[in-house]
């Protein structure tokens, strides 16, 4: 069902389209003729920015790298260059911007690490096949909370339709939200612990590293689920604001 993932791993060398020399894949400019290199299929944001594959990142350092590289290959500076170099500059700048955005945020940083380490995506809205899996499967550690929340939401919806005071219902929603918030905070903490562990495992055995990655992925899946739950509560709150009227959303 799920098609094989796009080959994210980079080839080992690049070929300079100007002079034909070979260049290491993480070079941005040809060591031979110093022209900007075409991007090719670079798949690793960490190495693109000259960073090790680690999850704890100094945000000032990341920002400085981003600025320095922007200054090297922004399209502004290739306005008069040959078309292939202009294209290379556009591609490298886009890729840099994507890389910076992904690594700046701790969660998307983990997502990217999992992808380049060859783990299946943990994003619930991964629409690549349009099959929409993941949505139905409740992570085991959340079963209890999900169960309780769904019951509470059903009850609140019923009460809303029978014209219960929206303020009372809002208060109930807030109460229902509290345990989910606790879970989320717990997850943030676990994510951080696992990130530190991953960084310390540089020379560890493959199996150990894999265990950490699996645990990180587990946390992300749960996290996505928790966010969906919070979003559901938000939607309920919003429909209360509509003064008892069912929310207008008749499209589709």
């Amino acid at each position, binding site marked *: 069902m799920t*098609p094989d993932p*796009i080959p994210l791993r980079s080839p080992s060398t690049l070929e300079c389209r100007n002079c034909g020399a070979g260049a290491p894949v993480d070079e941005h400019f040809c060591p031979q003729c110093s022209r900007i290199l075409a991007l090719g299929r670079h798949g690793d944001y960490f190495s693109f920015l000259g960073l090790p594959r680690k999850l704890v990142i100094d945000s000032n350092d990341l920002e400085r790298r981003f*600025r320095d590289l*922007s*200054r090297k290959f*922004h*399209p*502004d*500076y290739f*306005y*008069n260059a040959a078309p292939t170099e202009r294209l290379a500059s*556009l*591609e490298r*700048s*886009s*890729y840099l*911007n*994507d890389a*910076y*955005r992904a690594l700046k945020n701790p969660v998307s940083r983990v997502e990217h690490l999992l992808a380049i380490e060859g783990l299946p995506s943990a994003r619930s*809205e991964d*629409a*690549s*096949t*349009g099959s929409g899996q993941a949505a139905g499967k409740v992570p085991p550690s959340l079963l209890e909370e999900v169960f309780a929340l769904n019951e509470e939401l059903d009850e609140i919806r019923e009460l809303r339709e029978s014209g219960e005071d929206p303020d009372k219902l809002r208060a109930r929603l807030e109460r229902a939200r509290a345990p989910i918030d606790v879970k989320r905070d717990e997850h943030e903490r676990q994510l951080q612990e696992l990130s530190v562990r991953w960084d310390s495992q540089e020379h560890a055995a493959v199996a150990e590293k894999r265990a950490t990655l699996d645990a990180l992925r587990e946390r992300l899946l749960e996290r996505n689920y928790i966010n969906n739950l919070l979003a559901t509560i938000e939607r309920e709150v919003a429909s209360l604001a509509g003064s008892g009227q069912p929310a207008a*959303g008749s*499209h*589709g």
Partner: protein
Amino acid sequence: MGKVVGIDLGTTNSLVAYVDEGRPVVMRDESGDALVPSVVSLDEDGTIFVGREAQRRLLAAPSRSVYSVKRFMGRGIDDVRGDAGLLPFRVSGEAGGVVRIGVGDREFTPPEISAFVLRELKHRAEEHFRKQGEFDFEVDRAVITVPAYFNDAQRTATRDAGRLAGLEVLRIINEPTAASLAYGLDKRNRGTIAVYDLGGGTFDISILKVEDGVFQVLSTNGDTHLGGDDIDRLLVEMVISDLAGSGAGGRGAGAAEGQMPPEGGPAAIEVIRRAVIQAKWDLSDVEETEIRVEPSPAVRAGYRRRITRADFERIIRPLVDRTLEPCRQALADAGLEPKDIDEAVLVGGSTRIPLVRRVVEELFERKPHSEINPDEVVALGAAVQADILVSGRREMLLLDVTPLSLGIETMGGVVSKIIVRNSTIPASGREMFTTGVDNQTGVDIHVLQGERELAADCRSLAHLHLRGIPPMVAGLPRIEVRFQIDANGILSVAARELRTGIEQTIEVKPSYGLTDQEVERMLIESFEHAEADFEARLLIDARNEAESVIHATEKVLRRADLDGVASELFEPGERERIDAALAGLKFVMAGTSRQAVHDWTHALNNVTRHLAEVTMNRTVREALAGKNVKDV
């Protein structure tokens, strides 16, 4: 290689600037005026007028004159119905298509109208370079600014306008970002800046971080339908409702509809508009003024009403408050609090309004900057960016963002986001598609821009038709569609079937834009009209020259009267000859004979020659403002 300029293509006024020995300067006309009103007017014989001349004609021929066309760029007729009510020109278009503007028996798209304004700016710049004695004075490339919150269709329409005007558009940049570049020239400091840009028709807020000469936009937000025009409209509606007799309660409820033309038609709206704009300007300096419409055929009884700044602020408060939510959203998107902002910068003519200044100061908890003329700062920044592009100078780098998320419609009419808003541009995104039927060779994709969940609530950008997919079992093809937003904030799309590596051809049908073929056709048409345009241009040049001579002469005469030195300056009968020549020139200015304007200008120059000489000797050299002196 021709010259390069920066252009601020505004709702109300447009400007052109360039970098002269490292400093950006705006280009002025003979009388020192930097603003070219974004007004285009068509004569019965097809002659086209732009700028001040077109503005003059707004009163005489309101239904043949077009202004505020920026509001229609990249938009469909359904978007602009609310605006069309109080405008004197015809606005039409098919549902789901480009807006058309009717003037006389001709119809134009908004990019064509904007192209007339751009041509005028191009001409102004070329005159400037020519007068400086440049051998190669042709202006062929420009950086043009747009509101940061412009969507893809609006940006593309602006680029099309540039092409139609014979300009290679080097870059489309965002107005608030351009302004920050102009400010950044003087202060090479670092910090977090909020640029609040309230112009004639649009509002933008951009939050930037400046460090090591890199101007990085963190977030942007805005409203492409909020500006000085809306303020004018509220006041015009108030006057119309007063005139309709329901004056008792100030604004009548009916006026809010904005669809009710007054008895005098478009001409009446235009005189009222001028009167309220004057009052609006007054109230930036004084506490009380009068909206005053002189009796005329358009408004027979005339109109007068005293208005205090407090009244004015009460009327416009809701509009000004509408800028606050975008500001808060931009701060939230940047992950900042108001106290994190080091500097706030004011851009756009509407930021002269004291209430606007107060609101900005309260929001960002600091006094905003307005040292650089808020009308000129954007054009200056555009010139800086143009210079960076052609010179390859690397001291400064602007990193902007895309204001709106880009997505595609998926099953159930839901939008799947591919590039999220506030992503630094250039930015790219990929999405995988496959087929649903065996041997299917084509896929249709609907591209949207906006933040809402449902496709119906987002802006439709284009329908893409992927063709040439190799025939395979359903679900087997793996088509990667790559969306690329370039440094202009404009989208391009490429697709490839990954199993075979075959590139797909993509037909793009823009939802609210022109196809390349349409732009080509318009270019050809514009050449056909070029002759009439050329005649008009000569007339306008003659009038502009005449105006500057009149201006310079009157200035000297006034000075002479004031200083009480008239007797030593004038020879017997000289004053009378000058007055007669002045009157003659002013009279022919109202007509359309270029020769007459030219002859009378010459005459005035002749009779003022002696005066010019003596005043020069009297060291009031500057009073003659350069050009006149040269002609003498």
